[in-house]
């Protein structure tokens, strides 16, 4: 198990290095750091001197090493729009996205497991067929369209829910949370439902197909042959194995969720990382883009590593031998 964890960490580190190279390439090509510092009213000679002084004329490899060293200290340069270190900007916006993803995950996990398991056990049942139909419609509607339609219906037509922003926030030690006020929760409803609209059908279908496959397996047949009650066969024998796949795929799906936060946050003007990212793109704010890429990369690699380790702990086959 220990060797397994070590190996996962080495893999994770390698991926981070690759991301950092991409991030560095972005920094090299997007925006002009000299302009970011001086503005445009500077002569060419002065610019050149500035470039020398900033080390922009050094060999690329040296520049990359410098970039990595700074990055390790959490220094990605200043965002030229916010006039603050990019990392600080990222950290100040992170809570909004984390809360959004958290509530979405609760909705997805809370609904997909019972619905997926139910429709696997009774695949021919009317409700299961309805679920499958609804889920394919769900996968086919883009997140941003669901978001827009919800705004049109609940904000514009009915006037029940606010259409943008996070509402009233409470700051706890630098963490601005919307989860302690009613207004905050009202603002959370539509973005989190919209975001889960893409994950929920995927998860229901995943759990269903996985569970159905396991219900056909020899060991489930043997469990029936032992005369176990159906609840024991379904929830102990079949579900425990289903969970293994759901854990692995769940980790991968988190990557997709982050991509979709960009869309959701844009529609709802949710002041989180996705919204920040789109702003940075419009303003060609290279430092911020790089910091965002590194932040998302680290979160994603971190989550994937943790998921793999949890999988390793749940799955007895990995626990002893250390190989997947």
């Amino acid at each position, binding site marked *: 198990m220990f060797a397994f964890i070590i190996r996962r960490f080495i893999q994770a580190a390698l991926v981070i290095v690759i991301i950092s190279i991409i991030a560095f390439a*972005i920094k090299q090509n997007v925006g002009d750091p000299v302009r970011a510092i001086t503005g445009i009213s500077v002569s060419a000679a002065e610019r050149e001197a500035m470039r020398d002084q900033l080390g922009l004329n050094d060999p690329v490899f040296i520049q990359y090493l410098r970039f990595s060293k700074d990055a390790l200290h959490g220094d990605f340069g200043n965002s030229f729009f916010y006039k603050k270190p990019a990392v600080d900007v990222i950290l100040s916006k992170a809570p909004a996205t984390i809360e959004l993803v958290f509530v979405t995950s609760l909705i997805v996990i809370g609904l997909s497991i019972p619905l997926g398991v139910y429709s696997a056990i009774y695949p021919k049942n009317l409700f299961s067929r309805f679920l499958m139909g609804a889920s394919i419609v769900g996968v*086919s509607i*883009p997140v*941003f369209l669901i978001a827009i339609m919800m*705004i*049109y219906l609940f904000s514009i037509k009915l006037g029940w829910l606010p259409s943008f922003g996070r509402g009233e926030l409470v700051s706890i030690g630098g963490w601005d949370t919307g989860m302690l006020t009613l207004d905050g929760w009202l603002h959370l409803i539509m973005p989190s439902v919209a975001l889960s609209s893409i994950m929920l059908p995927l998860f229901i279908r995943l759990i269903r197909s996985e569970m159905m496959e396991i219900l056909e397996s020899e060991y489930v047949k043997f469990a029936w042959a032992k005369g176990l009650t159906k609840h024991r066969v379904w929830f102990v024998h079949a579900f425990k194995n289903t969970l293994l796949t759901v854990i692995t795929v769940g980790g991968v799906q988190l990557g*997709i969720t982050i991509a*979709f936060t960009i869309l959701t946050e844009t529609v709802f003007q949710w002041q989180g990382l996705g919204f920040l990212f789109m702003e940075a793109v419009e303003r060609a704010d290279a430092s911020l883009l790089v910091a965002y890429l590194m932040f998302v990369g680290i979160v994603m690699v971190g989550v994937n590593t943790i998921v793999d380790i949890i999988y390793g702990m749940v799955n007895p086959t990995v626990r002893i031998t250390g190989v997947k």
Partner: protein
Amino acid sequence: MSRHIDNFKQSYLWYAFKRDKVAIASMIVLCILVFTAVFAPLIATYNPYDPINTDVMNSEIPPLWMEGGDSAFLMGTDAQGRDLFSTMVYGMRISLLIGVGAVVLQSVIGITIGLISGYFGGKLDSFFMRMADVQLSFSYLMVAIFFTAILQAAVGVGRFGEIAIPFLILVIGFSQWPQYARTVRASVLAEKKKEYVEAARVTGFGAGRIMWGHIFPNTLSPILVLSTIQVANAVMSEAALSFLGLGMPISRPSLGSLINSGFEYIFSGAWWITIFPGVLLVVLILSINLLGDFLRDVLNPKLYKG
């Protein structure tokens, strides 16, 4: 050719298709949509790319059947004053072009890598599969958003508009190759064990001939299923990118950019600019997805999960 048609008519696929009302309906809808897209210049009542048809005086006219509707514009006009129906038809043409183009590209990359990976195995295989893992963990949409964003920031919005179509095909194509590679690799591994491959090798055929001539035809049914789903995904990705303002410019809008351009107007009541292209997009994706689902049920290949 007629022999092939007869063979197909006797196949299980055709038999199942005839009995599946949902599949037939989706097929009909999809055919109509594709036909409309291909013959857009004949079907659209206006050419949305022609500046003559862009008249701000005509902007935000509601659909024909609503109060203030104009008989010249069946579904009303967008914020630029273009006929919405014509713009949607042209927009769908672009969405489909990018979707299909991206899938062609990714299938070429993915199938080649998948065949090589599965057939030769070893270091090459683990290298490609590691790469696929890493890319998949970032999700194709994230990769596509990122690269489009960077390119747009690097070349500027104006110039980006000119190269948007080939670039979107490239980005979406490259961001989705791992699914193909993994699916093909998995079926290659399964096929490789079978005797006919051994027989071909003993006969002295080269690796290329065995891969393309013998193994590849046997991986077609998972590829067919995957391709269907991937077209839907690619169309969806394009719409997402365009919605974020990273895709097609509003002067040559795809469905996604139309939805984006209409979004700010729904607050002032002009819902049709967003909702009509939105519904068309959903119908398009849904019909492809339903067909994909039908194919998956009938051909029942092992697709790679995740």
